[in-house]
């Protein structure tokens, strides 16, 4: 009896695995297709959409880089992403430090105020932000992206950081006060280094968010020299729609940094994605 049951079980589990692996292939295929198609000539792209490239067209990448000015777009994306990342990390760490380690009256309210921000649909702020940016003359500057990216990264950042900081034992600050360190010393020399895991989670999440953003850039930036990578890629597709290898090479270039980052920091990315949701 046990042997037939065992073999039924075996068949069942292999069907399970077949379905799972099938699902895995289906999810990864569009991505795989993007990369191999980026190496194709147009004829190759038409005639053998599923095949590997006949000749690997490496020059698609250099042509895409030059003709669509991806270098400038790359730099712009880097500047706004790193800029908002630096601001976010510093002010979120300061605020979380205070919210997690100090007792004061408005604490609960301020925390709630930040958390509500996670539920506000970004796009509902586009029109008023556009008007605001226009009035304070920030349209078509890096700040037009750095400030909103920071603002929208703050709720998650403060949520993740303060949850982490609350788990650090209380003796830490007592010890450092006895040593004669002030609050700033405590923050810069003790708390910041101790919260590195949470800070790196926040780093990855905010970087991904600002690197990939399309809608803010679309509305606040119209000057070609300031366009970020997602804008560059989107425009690029309009202009060169019929040169498929070129467009796909441009798309591939734009995803390389985040994919590399993902492959290196995979565990951290996944932890970061869940930190907020599970505890919330």
């Amino acid at each position, binding site marked *: 009896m046990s042997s037939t049951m065992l073999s039924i079980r075996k068949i069942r589990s292999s069907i399970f695995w077949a379905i799972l692996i099938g699902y895995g292939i289906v*999810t990864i295929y569009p991505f795989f297709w993007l990369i191999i198609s980026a190496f194709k000539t147009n004829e190759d792209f038409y005639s053998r959409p599923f095949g590997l490239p006949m000749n690997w067209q490496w020059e698609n990448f250099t042509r895409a880089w030059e003709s669509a000015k991806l270098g400038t777009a790359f730099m712009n994306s880097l500047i706004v992403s790193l800029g908002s990342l630096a*601001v976010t990390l510093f002010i979120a760490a300061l605020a979380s430090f205070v919210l997690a380690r100090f007792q*004061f009256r408005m604490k609960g309210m*301020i925390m709630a105020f930040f958390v509500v921000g996670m539920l506000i649909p970004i796009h*509902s702020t586009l029109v008023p932000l556009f008007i605001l940016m226009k009035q304070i003359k920030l349209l078509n500057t890096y700040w037009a992206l750095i400030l909103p990216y920071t603002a929208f990264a703050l709720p998650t950042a403060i949520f993740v950081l303060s949850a982490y900081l609350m788990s650090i034992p209380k003796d830490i600050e007592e010890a450092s006060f006895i040593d004669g360190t002030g609050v700033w010393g405590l923050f810069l020399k003790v708390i910041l280094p101790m919260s590195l895991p949470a800070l790196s989670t926040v780093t990855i999440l905010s970087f991904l968010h600002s690197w990939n953003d399309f809608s803010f850039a679309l*509305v606040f930036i119209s000057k070609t020299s300031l366009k970020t990578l997602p804008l560059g*890629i*989107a425009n690029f597709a309009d202009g060169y729609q019929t040169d498929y290898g070129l467009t796909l090479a441009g798309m591939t270039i734009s995803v390389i940094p985040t994919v590399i980052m993902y492959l290196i920091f995979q565990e951290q990315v*996944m932890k970061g994605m*869940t930190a907020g949701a599970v505890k919330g």
Partner: protein
Amino acid sequence: MNIRSHRNFIVFALLPALLIYALFVFVPVIWSAYYGFFNWSGIGEAKFIGVKNYVEILQDPVFWRSLKNNFIFVLAAVFGQVPIALVLAVLLHKSNMIQRFLRSAIFLPMVLSTVVIGMIWQYIYHPQIGILNFLLESLGLESWKLQWLSDNKIAIYSLLPPLIWSFVGLYLIIFISALQNIPGEVHDAAKIDGASGLRKLVSISIPMIWGTIQVAIILCISGSLKSFDLVYIMTKGGPAHATELLATYMYNSTFTSYRYGFGSAISTTIVVISLLLIGTSQWLTSRRGKK
């Protein structure tokens, strides 16, 4: 720590975060409610017109179309992404090689820009060069070939696979970490009682992670209401408003027709609708959880 000795520090430390957040997230939401009462083209005088914009929105068939499409997105997310992710999480929550690989593969779209996701799927759906129609043809299913994005009856449904594809990974990871938090003894006890896999899922795993499922549903709703980019890239709301969402409706009214007041009124409507939806879903799921 003592409040009096550090009062200045507390104020100083909170101020930058509060200011930036209030100025660029909160104030705009309030402002758009205010601008919603004006007729304004972006330049020149704004004219106060009371609730006219809001009345016009409610009478505009495009608004109702957008709202319906947004609902289709929300339903696809809640009843597509959540169950798929839940089943995958149960199957993938242990950590052998294949499971880790599959998890990473399913999560990968999350790190891609929506622009790239939209463009990849545009190519997949392309009527002449798209691999979907090519696949159907090579399988001998010529009659199934369709104009996936330009037929106004099916375009909105064509947008659902990319939507589900790009977000299942997020919920998968959330559910996996919730499942890993269930203490091992619970499963051992179930095994002794002779509970089978499916039984264990329905009567142990799901109730134990119900809180997480609730959070996932909220994320699904607010996430689907944020799906402007995908639609903007793939169809721009067309053909003939067939794939219009509230966000593209707002964008088109404001930045294509230059009606800032009207666009602001739509923005406010979006905030109200999403808060209502999230409130309702909270109420529904917490009632079910208590049963």
